[in-house]
């Protein structure tokens, strides 16, 4: 091809691609994405399932000793937690009775409706910490639905098609969640890091932060239900500005090995925009 023709082809392609980006970011090509994503999601589900089985087997073999030790530790921890659980069940029953007396209308875990989904892939860009799941609008999944596992919060749905959805993980640098420390009730915000860590920030300077304390969602802003476990405090330090404290938080969820997640499909955020007018 002649040089002039090549430059023309490049310029035309660039223009087409820029238009595609613009229309896609405006949501104008959603129906097309829905159609194309069906076979891609299917292929992704098949290949992703096989990959996870193989990878899980290789990991298990490689970590056999570690798993054995961890199993022993977990058994010991389980014994401790069972005693605590019995105590908490008692307290829970007291709470239910008192809440009923107060007619306390608040959505608890037992009111939540879940859809269980397989993880079928991870975001291809690398810059975004996100996973793809095999549940979509047909399963009742909607935009911004919270996604959890039994170990705590995973993220929120940011893109949804008929048969699949993309979940932005809490470890993504753009993720920001209102949280509180479970024992001291101090509020803060957990933000993700590209390295995969979580940082709890905006903790008041004089607040007591206990290492090992659980970090849970506080429900402020109504973007997520309250009391979802986000992680555990690893360490704490004063922020660079010295205006607040920052804590390193370790999620109990292993984001690299996520296979099954649950989407809470009946959480409806309160529309606060009316108060902003």
């Amino acid at each position, binding site marked *: *091809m002649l040089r002039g023709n*090549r430059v023309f*082809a*490049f310029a035309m*392609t*660039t223009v*087409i*691609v*820029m238009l*595609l*980006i*613009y229309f*896609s*970011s405006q949501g104008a*090509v959603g129906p097309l*994405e829905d159609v*194309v*994503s069906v*076979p*891609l999601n299917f*292929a*992704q589900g098949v*290949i*992703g399932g096989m*990959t996870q089985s193989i*990878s899980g087997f290789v990991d298990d073999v490689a970590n056999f000793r570690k798993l054995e030790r961890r199993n022993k530790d977990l058994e010991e921890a389980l014994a401790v937690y069972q005693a605590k659980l019995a105590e908490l069940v008692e307290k829970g029953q007291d709470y239910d009775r008192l809440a009923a007396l107060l007619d306390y209308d608040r959505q608890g875990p037992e009111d939540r409706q879940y859809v269980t989904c397989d993880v*079928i*892939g*991870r*975001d*291809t*860009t*690398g*810059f*975004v*910490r*996100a996973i*793809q799941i095999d549940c979509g609008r047909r399963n009742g999944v909607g935009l911004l639905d919270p996604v959890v596992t039994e170990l705590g919060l995973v993220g929120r749905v*940011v*893109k949804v098609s008929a048969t699949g959805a*993309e979940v*932005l993980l809490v470890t993504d*640098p*753009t993720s920001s969640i209102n949280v509180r420390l479970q024992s001291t009730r101090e509020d803060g915000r957990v933000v993700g*890091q*590209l*390295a995969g860590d979580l940082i709890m920030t905006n903790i008041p300077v004089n607040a007591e932060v206990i290492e090992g304390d659980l970090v849970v969602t506080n429900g402020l802003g109504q973007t997520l239900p309250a009391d979802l476990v986000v992680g555990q405090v690893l360490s704490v330090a004063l922020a660079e500005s010295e205006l607040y404290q920052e804590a390193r938080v370790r999620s109990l969820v292993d984001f*690299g090995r996520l296979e099954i997640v649950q989407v809470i499909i009946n959480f409806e955020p309160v529309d606060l925009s009316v108060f902003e007018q």
Partner: protein
Amino acid sequence: MSNYFGIPILALAAVLNATVMAELRLGGGAPDLVFLLVVCWALLMDVRGALVWAVVGGVMQDMLSVAPLGASSLGLVIVVFAIDSLLAPDDRVSLVAPPVVAAGGTLVYHLALLIVLRMFGEVAVPVGQGLYYVTVPSMIYNTLLILPTLRIMAAIYRGSQPQRPRLE
């Protein structure tokens, strides 16, 4: 060879990127099969075919990502044009040029992707962190994998050409 034959290959590569390659992540970076296929095609074939592969491959990639459709295509199109403009046809299949192209191309591709994500995807990834955690590992993987991929693609290309009858 028809450019359309690349569509299923690129779709498969995008699915493999989201599944198998994601298991090989070093930091945030992983081998990028779509990028490697498009670069190999640009090194082996004409610019028009490579541009089609860049657009289709990028769109397939973005179907499995938070990024808006076309975000990956833009970076790939720029890389294809750079290969076509800067490399003479004879240099493209040497032992040195493909790894250099893979390393430089990964950087250009990721920078373009970061800019599009910031402008249209409402995803403000910190550029420094992004380059450190994602681009550098991807660059290493892509540089190591470009020569084997180029060989496989060259074999496929040769195999798809009609055989000429020999004169006895």
